[in-house]
């Protein structure tokens, strides 16, 4: 079997991409919206710092031994660029890139800005939790689709 690296990416690599990666790995139940405690206990959820932008963060290996990463690209529409860069490097077949920005709602944006952008997690996290729960079903569907189409 060819092993693929799944890369879930968004602007900050902190919320929607982390949720999707953990759904992919089975760390979160795709059928049940997680609690605040489950969310904040995820290693990368709402914890990234500016230095993490552009660093591919390993999250784990799925049931078929495919590696799963999250990536904060500091761009809201990076799909064409990341695929183009991978092609120039000759590594396109190694990766499946999955953008999660279309699933980021206004609460996640606001919460993420307050918590990560302004370093005020006590202000931002209530919005982040609410926004993450709102986005969760769509992210779970995305991951299901990616797995069916790719594996």
């Amino acid at each position, binding site marked *: 079997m060819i092993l693929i690296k799944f890369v879930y990416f968004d602007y900050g690599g902190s919320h929607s991409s982390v949720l999707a990666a953990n759904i992919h790995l089975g760390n979160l139940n795709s059928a049940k919206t997680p609690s605040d405690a489950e969310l904040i206990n995820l290693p990368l959820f709402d914890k990234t710092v500016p230095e993490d932008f552009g660093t591919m963060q390993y999250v784990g290996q799925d049931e078929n031994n495919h590696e799963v990463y999250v990536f904060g690209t500091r761009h809201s529409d*990076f799909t*064409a660029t990341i695929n183009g860069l991978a092609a120039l490097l000759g590594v396109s077949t190694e990766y499946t890139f999955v953008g999660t920005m279309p699933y980021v709602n206004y609460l996640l944006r606001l919460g993420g800005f307050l918590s990560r952008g302004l370093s005020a997690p006590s202000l931002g996290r209530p919005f982040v939790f609410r926004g993450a729960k709102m986005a969760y079903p769509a992210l779970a569907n995305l991951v299901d689709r990616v797995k069916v189409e790719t594996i």
Partner: protein
Amino acid sequence: MDYILVGKNAVYETIVAALVFLQKEENLIEELDKNPVFGDLDRDNKREPIFMGFDNRGNRIYILGTQNYKLIEKIVGELSRVAGQPDIPLQVITMEIKGDALTYYLAYLADLPLIGAWFANLAKRWVISRKTEIMTSCRNTINSMPQLEDFSPAAKPLK
């Protein structure tokens, strides 16, 4: 080794830098006029690397315009590292050119209906009016990167 020049706008300042790399700076205005990529915002908005040609050693030269252009070198390094490549086969050259923020906003306004074309034209004229400055900036970038010494252009009078 292939090269990708990255900046805020691929089809404005970065294309000028690419022409310097391709040693086509002597007739820069003519080169820009005949190059369909110059000012092509549809192409820029695709956010994909744009192939510009081969240098005199057969290396491919690409350009890319993106908001997060300062992060591209790191992103390319990460894609290569995680894929297990021993060496990165793509050299990223980050172009920081004074005045590119104004070009970016003019290009943004070029999407407006009816008056958009006027802003697109203005962006082109803004770039052409700064060609000497852009070329100098490009040469400074070349000189600041030891791995690019093959590209160091001989001092030539500007037309």
